[in-house]
């Protein structure tokens, strides 16, 4: 199976790799997937007082498509409001990266990671956690 140019680009030059200080109240961390399933994503966001995401970082254990999906997600998150970030749909990632059907789960995982990071931020700041629809894949 050949990878799309965009997957190769994100894999070769991943954007926003790293770690934010998860003890800060302004940082939300999402850790999704499982080692035994072959992919784990950790996605972190830093949110300012206007509910805008000023920074996003990721680390991913997984195939090229999983790495590319999370790298792309961090790119999209920066500068978005939390509400806008919540609206990111996995199919947008599928389209942007031209993921084949067997790799759709990578995009679902990235969407889960975004929502999970936002929830972590919300809970830390005294807001109720949101119901997440897509958790199983």
């Amino acid at each position, binding site marked *: 199976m050949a990878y799309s140019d965009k997957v190769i680009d994100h894999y070769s030059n991943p954007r926003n790799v790293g770690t934010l200080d998860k003890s800060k109240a302004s940082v939300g961390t999402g850790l999704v997937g499982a080692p*035994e399933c072959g992919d784990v994503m950790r996605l972190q966001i830093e949110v300012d007082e206007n509910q805008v995401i000023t920074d996003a970082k990721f680390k991913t254990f997984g195939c090229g498509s999983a*790495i590319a999906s999370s790298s792309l997600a961090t790119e999209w998150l920066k500068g978005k409001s939390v509400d806008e970030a919540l609206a990111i749909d996995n199919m947008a990632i599928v389209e942007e990266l031209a993921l084949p059907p067997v790799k759709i789960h990578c995009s679902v995982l990235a969407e889960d990671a975004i929502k999970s990071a936002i929830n972590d931020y919300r809970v830390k700041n005294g807001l109720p956690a949101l119901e997440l629809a897509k958790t199983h894949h």
Partner: protein
Amino acid sequence: MLTLPIYLDNNATTPLDPRVLEAMLPYMTNMFGNAASRNHAFGWQAEEAVDYAREQIAALINCSPKEIIFTSGATESDNLAIKGVYEMYASKGNHVISVTTEHKAVLDTCKHIEKIGGKVTYLQVNSEGLIDLKELEEAITDKTILISIMYANNEVGVIQSVREISAIAKKHGILFFTDATQAVGKIPVDVEADGIDLMAFSAHKMYGPKGVGALYVRRKNPRVKVTAQMDGGGHERGMRSGTLNVPGIVGLGKAAEIAKQDMESDTARISAMRDRLEKELTTIEESYVNGSREHRLPHVSNISFKYVEGEGLMMGVKDLAVSSGSACTSASLEPSYVLKALGLSDDLAHSSLRFGLSRFTKDEEIDYAIGHVKEAVSKLRELSPLWEMFKEGIDLDSIEWAEH
């Protein structure tokens, strides 16, 4: 000169040896006869070539040329052996013993046997990939007609104790079939000394062409017969109908002859390269060799690089053609059942790469591979949240991972 990409997937298939190609070419052009045409020179020529190939193969595995049944490859040979014995010896029993780490061609054939009313016992292997001989003997019942255990495994290269297995089979009067696809032409295989009754192998794993293989069927002590799985002209002593693939068979014969002649020197060179590759790659922190290192084919190394996912790693070593036990490489999304049978956790199975060397592998290719893999593992670990946690001393088993 180094040409990229470098082929290190020789357990999947090997390149055709130029000497084999040369032997085959005339049988694709001028000497196109049907080996079954008994009444003209074209047929005689083809038949002679096939008979000569039989002799070349017989010399490699120490059997009589008459005991070689040509097939389309090892999958067909596996099917013919297991289904053929099951049908032929139905009056004696319906129980087959095999192993969980067999190739799919054997496992799925065994499943077929179960579907049509047979019973199959699948033996487990230990962490080295070897079966327990005591368990084998205990699995035998008065209905057991066949023991089907591979000679050497395709994923980890582990070589089973074939002589001990055949001794047990003989003691109980049970036939012993071995899928020797990975072993024939690579290590000495002697059907007499090894006590093998039926044996499957294939040309394209030993520098021959694709689409041709053979089933060895013993003719003496005991005389073994298999029921044909294809109806037709009654070729190959009635066990496998179909016009013989003369150029392919000539290629298999030549490949066998070269294997016999070059095995010792090839093995010395290849295993030295494999050992160097393995020694260097296991200097990487948290890397593990899978399967027995003692009872193993000389040209294979299967290594898990913990905290790095296999398919991601393969993408990182794009100048190397290797394979991975990772889920993502197959449509099933399940990691390698062979590695799991060896007791590897799913995450280690996901993190494995298989390196398969050949007689054409060069030292400088191994040098390149070592550097390339080291670099890719290190890059991916920088990206890996699991590596970061490991480095922070977090026990990954203590984390409640989301169901998937």
